[in-house]
């Protein structure tokens, strides 16, 4: 009992000492946050990590873009901020001394994927703000099958998978990227990469076929036959491939083969071979969400099948506008490699 009493007394003294140290030995880091073109960034989460203890402190920038990280124990701190669409900000070894304020103004830089107005971080954020997928049961056709029809937002990837590309495919992608992807089909108003969708797309479903329409691709639509026909016996290369679908319970399984040689496989500029086989498994889990599992098989470029998982939100009220890419494509003559 006596021993316990000593312990409690000792712990109390320790707390007093800790509090005294806290009051006398803290400093502050403060500053403002600005975007790559000098605009104020409100609501950003700024983080400071004590270099010796690893303790993390957080602050949120105000409507004026100001932030304050107060009550920091004296020491050295790493200050960082990460936002989608801009380069991560990090500064190391910010010295905090007792009773003083260290100023760290955060001027964010463009991300590696520079993009023009309308496709920039603010535009992406404006799109994300419009995501309000409705709740409700999966709609069904008169035949009782799930109806995938509707306008959908570009899917978010929930599992990117682990593609194992063959060295020859890696070399081609590297060359294309070193050339700034100046020769991408899309830059010449030809269809996008096989695995790319969006920013908006629409499904129109009937009993015998499904049509996918994209809002920024040319021609931007392809048909998926649901009438039981097989793939053509003679290879007939197509930019969107030849697509047939069948139902496995409530999952629509789409089988795509016969891809045109020029089309790129993905946004990382990988090629494909004439053995490319894409399987898309669509499941509309409720009114507002469409899950898709995409499996890419191509022994000509991949060591083994590559499976990725995505989810799209329904985009009620959004409209697919036409995208006549060749209308005014003046960029081609200005595209340069390295």
């Amino acid at each position, binding site marked *: 009992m006596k021993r316990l009493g000593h312990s409690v007394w000792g712990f109390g003294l320790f707390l007093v000492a800790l509090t005294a140290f806290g009051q006398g030995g803290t400093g502050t880091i403060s500053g403002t946050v600005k975007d790559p073109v000098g605009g104020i*960034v409100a609501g950003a989460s700024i983080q400071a990590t004590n270099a010796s203890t690893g303790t993390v402190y957080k602050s949120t920038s105000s409507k004026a873009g100001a932030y304050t990280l107060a009550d920091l124990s004296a020491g050295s701190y790493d200050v960082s901020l990460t936002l989608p669409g801009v380069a991560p900000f990090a500064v190391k070894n910010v010295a905090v001394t007792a009773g003083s304020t260290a100023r760290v103004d955060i001027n964010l830089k463009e991300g590696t994927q520079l993009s023009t107005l309308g496709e920039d971080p603010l535009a992406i954020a404006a799109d994300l703000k419009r995501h309000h997928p409705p709740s409700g049961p999966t709609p069904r056709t008169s035949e009782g099958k799930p109806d995938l029809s509707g306008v959908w937002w570009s899917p978010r990837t929930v599992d990117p998978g682990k593609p194992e590309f063959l060295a020859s495919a890696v070399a081609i992608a590297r060359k294309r990227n070193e050339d700034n992807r100046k020769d991408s089909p899309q830059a010449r108003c030809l269809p996008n990469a096989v695995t790319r969708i969006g920013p908006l797309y629409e499904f129109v479903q009937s009993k015998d076929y499904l049509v996918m329409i994209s809002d920024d691709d040319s021609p931007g639509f392809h048909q998926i036959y649901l009438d039981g026909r097989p793939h053509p016996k003679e290879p007939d290369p197509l930019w969107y491939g030849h697509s047939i679908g069948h139902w496995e319970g409530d999952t629509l399984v789409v089988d795509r083969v016969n891809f045109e040689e020029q089309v790129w496989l993905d946004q990382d500029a990988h090629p494909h071979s004439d053995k490319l086989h894409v399987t898309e498994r669509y499941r509309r889990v409720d009114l507002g969400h469409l899950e898709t599992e995409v499996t890419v098989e191509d022994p000509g470029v991949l060591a083994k099948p590559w499976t990725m998982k995505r989810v799209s939100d329904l985009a009620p009220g959004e409209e697919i506008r036409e995208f006549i890419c060749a209308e*005014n494509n003046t960029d081609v003559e200005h595209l340069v490699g390295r």
Partner: protein
Amino acid sequence: MNKKNKAGFLSVAAIVLGLMVVTMPALAHHSFAAEFDATKPLTLAGIVTKLEWTNPHARFHVSVKDEGGATTTWDFELGSPNGLMRHGWSRNSLKPGDMVTVMGYPAKDGSKLVNARSVTLADGRKIFAGSPDDGPTQ
């Protein structure tokens, strides 16, 4: 960029970060690096002479006067009308005769072509960034 607009941006950003596993939406009709030089940002001011509300990119032309009084017309590239219209901008958001200050990145090939990243009207309003519906521009 108005403050309300920014607050909107970041509230969304916070949600995005919360999800953690998010890939950026597919972007851009062509590679930025193939056409523009990210290391040479420049700012130009002048009078809008033409707006092209076309695909794959909306474009506007600005007559810029140099110190000697000579004028040069610059061609500024925006995103596609589809994306800009979804965010509330239109072919009437910018008109011939408007005074603008534009920050952007010039073409690598030396032509008078710039990727616009910030467009400011004479009254201080910034246009084509984010959504005008996020709040009154100022």
